[in-house]
Each structure stands twice: as structure tokens, then as C-alpha cells.
């Protein structure tokens, strides 16, 4: 057992510390008041948060995002990705995101978590977008995600989802509309995309696919 909880935290090692006394706590509180210390239960939480803020992904995109809620949700998406193998912590964070930011916020974070946004960004680069256009395209996408992105889930009714997508496209006329799916919903995603394309005009579809993800970009045809 470590005799020094500060050393334990700094070393990144979770160790028990059994030497707490009232006097020692008072000593720490003096240091706390001098802003020399912070107290944290599970140091891993703050280490993970700091880690996400140092990722290249955050480094690339933070300059495009001014809105403080979106900045936090973006970092939550990265954190969800980091916690994917820890189902209890993952579910707990999803609940907290949903409680504060509602389903819209959770969808945003999941869009980042699943790498869909990264793929959208690559898609923009592949289309030859200029740096100036990027400055508006990226925040536009992130701020209007509810109107331009849809996730296919296992329980979705194909006809209802097709209606929802068609309605959103006609209502918002986006340059790109994105239909996202993972694993077991990839087949349903393809069917829905096919039905949508039969109902709309002026768009062409482009597929991005991996073993576990299928994303359709419905791009407005430029004249």
C-alpha cells in the first residue's frame, strides 16, 4: 500500500492509502486552499478526460467548434469510444449524457464515438472541399446533426424510417444526408437507403463500408 496518495495518483497507480488522520486531512486542506491539490476518488476518470483532450481527433476539430455544449459532447463521444469495453461505465455515461443533453446530445456523442463524423470529414476532403468551405461545413454538420444524420437501429420499422429520412431531406435540403448503421443493422440500412433513393430526386448515394459499419452519404447532385 502506498503511503502517499499524491504519489499514487501521479504514478497512475490505484493503490490503497490507509494513513488518513484528521491532522493529515487538515494539512491537505491547507494545500488545497493554496490550489496545490485536488481530491478525486477515481483518478482514472480525470486521466481519461485529459487523454481525450490530447487526442489528434480533438486537436483537429476543436478549432471548428465554438459551442461549449458541442465541445463537451464531442469529448464525450471520444470517451464513449474509450469505454466501449467497459459496459457498465459506458452505460452510466450514456445515461448521464442523455439526462443532460437529451437524446439529441446522445446521438451527437454516438456520431463521434462510432467514427462516423471522422468518416464524414474524410468524405469532405475527398470531395476537394477548400479550407474556407471546411470552416462552415464542419460546424454546420455538427450543429444540425438531428436534421442531417440518422442512425438505423434493430427495432426500426423500415417504412417509418424511410418516411422520416425522406421528410428530413425535403425539409432541410442538406448538401449531404448521412444514414449510419453498425453490425446487425447494416442489412436494414441498405434496404432503407434503397427505398429513400426511390422517393427523392437530386441526390446520389455513396457507400462507406467496413466489417462493422455501413454509412451512406446521400449527396446533393451539383449542377
Amino acid at each position, binding site marked *: 500500500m502506498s503511503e502517499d*496518495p499524491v504519489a499514487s*495518483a501521479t504514478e497512475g497507480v490505484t493503490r490503497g*492509502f490507509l494513513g*488518513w488522520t484528521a491532522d493529515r486531512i487538515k494539512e491537505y486542506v491547507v494545500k488545497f486552499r493554496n490550489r*496545490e491539490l485536488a*481530491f*478525486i476518488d477515481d483518478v482514472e476518470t480525470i486521466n481519461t478526460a485529459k487523454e481525450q483532450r490530447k487526442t489528434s481527433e480533438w486537436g483537429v476539430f476543436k478549432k471548428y467548434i465554438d459551442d461549449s455544449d458541442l465541445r*463537451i459532447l464531442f469529448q464525450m463521444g471520444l470517451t464513449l469510444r474509450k469505454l466501449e469495453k467497459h459496459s457498465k461505465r459506458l452505460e*452510466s455515461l450514456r445515461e448521464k449524457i442523455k439526462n443532460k443533453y437529451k437524446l439529441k446530445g446522445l446521438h451527437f456523442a454516438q456520431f463521434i464515438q462510432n467514427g462516423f463524423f471522422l468518416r464524414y470529414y474524410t468524405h469532405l476532403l475527398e470531395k476537394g472541399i477548400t479550407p474556407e468551405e471546411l470552416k462552415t461545413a464542419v460546424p454546420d454538420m455538427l450543429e444540425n446533426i438531428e436534421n442531417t444524420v440518422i442512425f438505423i437501429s434493430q427495432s426500426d420499422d423500415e417504412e417509418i424510417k424511410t418516411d422520416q429520412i425522406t421528410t428530413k431531406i425535403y425539409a432541410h435540403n442538406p448538401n449531404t444526408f448521412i444514414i449510419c448503421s453498425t453490425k446487425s443493422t447494416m442489412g436494414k440500412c441498405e434496404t432503407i437507403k434503397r427505398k429513400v433513393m426511390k422517393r427523392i430526386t437530386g441526390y446520389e448515394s455513396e457507400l462507406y463500408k467496413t466489417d462493422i459499419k455501413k454509412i451512406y452519404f446521400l449527396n446533393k447532385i451539383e449542377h
Partner: protein
Amino acid sequence: MTDIVSIKNMPIEYRMILLKELGYDSDGRFVTEKSGEKVLDRYTREPILINNLAIFPGSTIILDNNPLSISSFLEEFGDV
């Protein structure tokens, strides 16, 4: 540079001492004001469990130690 003190294994009686030293209290489960009113997490607006604390200096900000609250704090106040 602020050092992080891990209080993961701090017994509850010492957590009570710590909170009282900082001007707060606890009903044994949640962090409270001296008046007994539950303190809410600045970002999630949920009561803060005494066994899941994150306490930052400055104006003594007590948070529930979860990724959303911690990232929100770092976003608002910068890295510690």
C-alpha cells in the same frame, strides 16, 4: 501545477472530516450544505455521492466523479 490526491480508499468518517473542513457536510450518503440541503453537481445537476467525489480548488468545486462532469470542468476551467 495542481497535484491530484486519490481518495479512493478514504474511509467515510474521514470524508466527512474533509467535507466539514471545506465548509460542507454530508448525510452519510450525499454531500450537503451545512444546512442539510443536498449539493448538486455543477454540470449534471444531480446530488453528489460521498463515495464518488471530485473536489477542485479555487472556489472549492465539488463534483460527482464522472466523465461528463470532469470534462465539463476541464472545458470551463482548463486543465488542472
